[in-house]
């Protein structure tokens, strides 16, 4: 690997949305950092290093979950918007409405947690929001759900604008999805990879958000009129359908940064092949059908749903590993691409995503799930593909966004920050996986003494990740302040 000299000869075209996107990435980065600190506090408490009131722990847990999903979604949405705007004429006002609704939602969520003491986790599993055991009032849970709804409405408006513009420019949504290209094979009419990704995410995430909205409204009505109740298993299906689709959409949005930025370093376009379009078509189906794997211990679910959960969990990994991961490796090998913080993080993001899918696929097996479900194995795999996947892509995009194109050397600080992020992140997720294999349940405020070692070691790794993230944000702010940053 050569990383001594980095120079991009062709600057990307001017992007009218850049300032809004820079603001978003700054906000997302700060929230990522704050949520990491919450995570560190929780691991410290689980390690017995500090004594934390369980009520506070579960509030931090709720904020950490909602905040991380939120910042992943926000950064993914910013990346997707930035790059889709290269192909279609997106209305910046729509993005501002989306951002405004998102921030309003964040205020509601944080208010419900830290002023209303809501601690029912980001999954708001019915009927927990209404039955808190005295920990929070119904009003706090209502505000939490309203916060989610505001964010959901913002996303639907965002996708409506994007879907409309993509449909106009690419002969309908099927054109944008690349499904027409799959059928007719006309390479000249193939939509760019970013448009295929955007169209796919628009379809499945809009459906997911609608299901989320339905179950949120049901929760709100139940909170206001307790005699109104819905079937708990049905509500859980809707919740996990929404939750699974929404969190996965964050990665599928962020990966467009790889499709768009890496070619600027290699000089080779990232092409839409039929295999690429077919893989994305498979994603549209798999990402929706796979959610059953969250209900493998709900034995009243029909047997076909269990089997679907297991089979599609495995199937979801096939396009990811055999197409996305393999193709990225193939594309970069021998490309002459030069490394800088942006390319390192983007390439890491694809790797972390692919590697993190493996323990998830294994956990998707019903027989394994019986031993691993709701243990720390679960945060073990999702932290791998979020911390070392989505978040890495987001930080990579942010680094590229404010990159100093006049510099020909990579700073030692960037190299240190990257290494710290990889080492800290890998160690951190390994502690979760080890904890899961040690049968340690997730979401426990207090751990037995025999379970504390993993948390104590994880605390050190978490601190290293936080240090690296602080350096990324420092570099980002420095880049923003520098004259000549991309606009």
């Amino acid at each position, binding site marked *: 690997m050569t990383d001594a000299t980095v120079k991009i000869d062709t600057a990307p075209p001017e992007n009218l949305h850049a300032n809004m996107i820079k603001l978003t990435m700054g906000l997302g980065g700060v929230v990522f950092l704050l949520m990491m600190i919450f995570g560190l506090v929780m691991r410290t408490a689980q390690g017995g290093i500090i004594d934390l009131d369980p009520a506070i722990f*579960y509030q931090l847990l709720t904020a950490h979950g909602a905040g991380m999903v939120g910042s992943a979604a926000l950064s993914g949405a910013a990346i997707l918007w930035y790059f889709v705007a290269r192909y279609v004429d997106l209305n910046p006002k729509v993005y501002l409405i989306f951002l405004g609704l998102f921030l309003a939602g964040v205020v509601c969520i944080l208010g419900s947690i830290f002023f209303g003491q809501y601690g029912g986790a980001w999954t708001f599993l019915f009927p927990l929001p209404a039955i808190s055991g005295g920990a929070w009032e119904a009003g706090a849970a209502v505000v939490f759900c309203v916060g989610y709804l505001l964010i959901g409405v913002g996303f639907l408006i965002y996708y409506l604008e994007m879907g409309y513009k993509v449909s106009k420019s690419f002969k309908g949504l099927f054109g944008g999805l690349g499904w027409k290209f799959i059928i007719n094979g006309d390479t000249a009419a193939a939509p760019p990879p970013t448009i295929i990704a955007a169209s796919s995410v628009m379809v499945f995430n809009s459906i997911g958000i609608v299901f989320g909205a339905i179950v949120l409204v049901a929760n709100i009505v139940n909170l206001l009129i307790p005699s109104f109740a819905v079937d708990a298993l049905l509500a859980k299906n809707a919740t996990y359908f929404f939750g699974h689709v929404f969190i996965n959409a964050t990665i599928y949005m962020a990966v467009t940064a790889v499709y768009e930025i890496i070619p600027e370093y290699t000089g080779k376009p990232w092409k839409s092949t039929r295999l690429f379009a077919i893989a994305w078509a498979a994603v549209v189906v798999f990402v929706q059908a796979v959610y059953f794997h969250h209900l493998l211990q709900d034995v009243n679910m029909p047997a076909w749903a269990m*089997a679907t959960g297991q089979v599609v969990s495995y199937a979801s990994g096939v396009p990811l590993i055999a197409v996305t991961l393999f193709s990225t490796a193939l594309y970069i*090998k*021998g*490309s002459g691409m030069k490394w800088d913080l942006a390319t390192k993080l983007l390439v890491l993001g694809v*790797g972390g995503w692919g590697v993190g899918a493996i323990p998830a696929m*294994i956990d998707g097996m019903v027989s394994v799930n019986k031993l691993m479900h709701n243990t720390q194995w679960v945060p073990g795999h999702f932290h791998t593909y979020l911390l070392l996947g989505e978040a890495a892509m987001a930080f990579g995009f942010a680094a590229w966004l404010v990159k100093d194109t006049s510099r020909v050397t990579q700073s030692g600080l960037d190299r240190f920050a990257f290494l710290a992020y990889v080492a800290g992140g890998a160690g951190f997720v390994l502690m979760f996986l080890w904890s899961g294999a040690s049968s340690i349940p997730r979401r426990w405020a207090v751990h037995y003494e025999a379970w504390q070692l993993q948390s104590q070691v994880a605390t050190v790794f978490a601190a290293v990740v936080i240090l690296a993230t602080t350096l990324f944000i420092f570099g980002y702010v420095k880049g923003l302040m520098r004259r000549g940053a991309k606009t």
Partner: protein
Amino acid sequence: MQTTILIISLALMAVVGVTYACAVYANDGPAAGPQANKNRSLLLWGMIVFGVIISVATLRENPHVSAGPAPMVVNISGGQWWWETDIYEIPMGQEVEFRVTTEDVTHGMGIYTPDMTLVAQVQAMPGYTNKLVHTFDAPGTYQILCMELCGIAHHDMINEFDVTEAAQ
């Protein structure tokens, strides 16, 4: 079992991660040749075939086994923040059908061995009775822990029962 799962997972993660890292770090080396596309097809089809085999092997019989003709029935109910069971002594080797219910929110009933290894679990869902069939093969005091976040004393929702050798 959990250790085996961990080792297999880490081995696969290492193979995929190291292969990927070697390829991307060869950015200044020779480009991938035409064989690479064949390798991708091989990987793709290999994963599909392996998936079919493992799915058939592990799903041919429902992993959530049903009880045989004469199980010992143990009723367990949960609530914020307690577990209640109608039987506290279970003979080793006896097939047991746990019938798990909840009086309020969703809980998760996890059964832990005396050395705190999770051996089985099932969700406790409002409005439903969830059945879990298990046969204990070692004596001792087992714990029931809550596996689903259910409020501020979730981690205190613990009970226990004994598996005895005597009645075998």
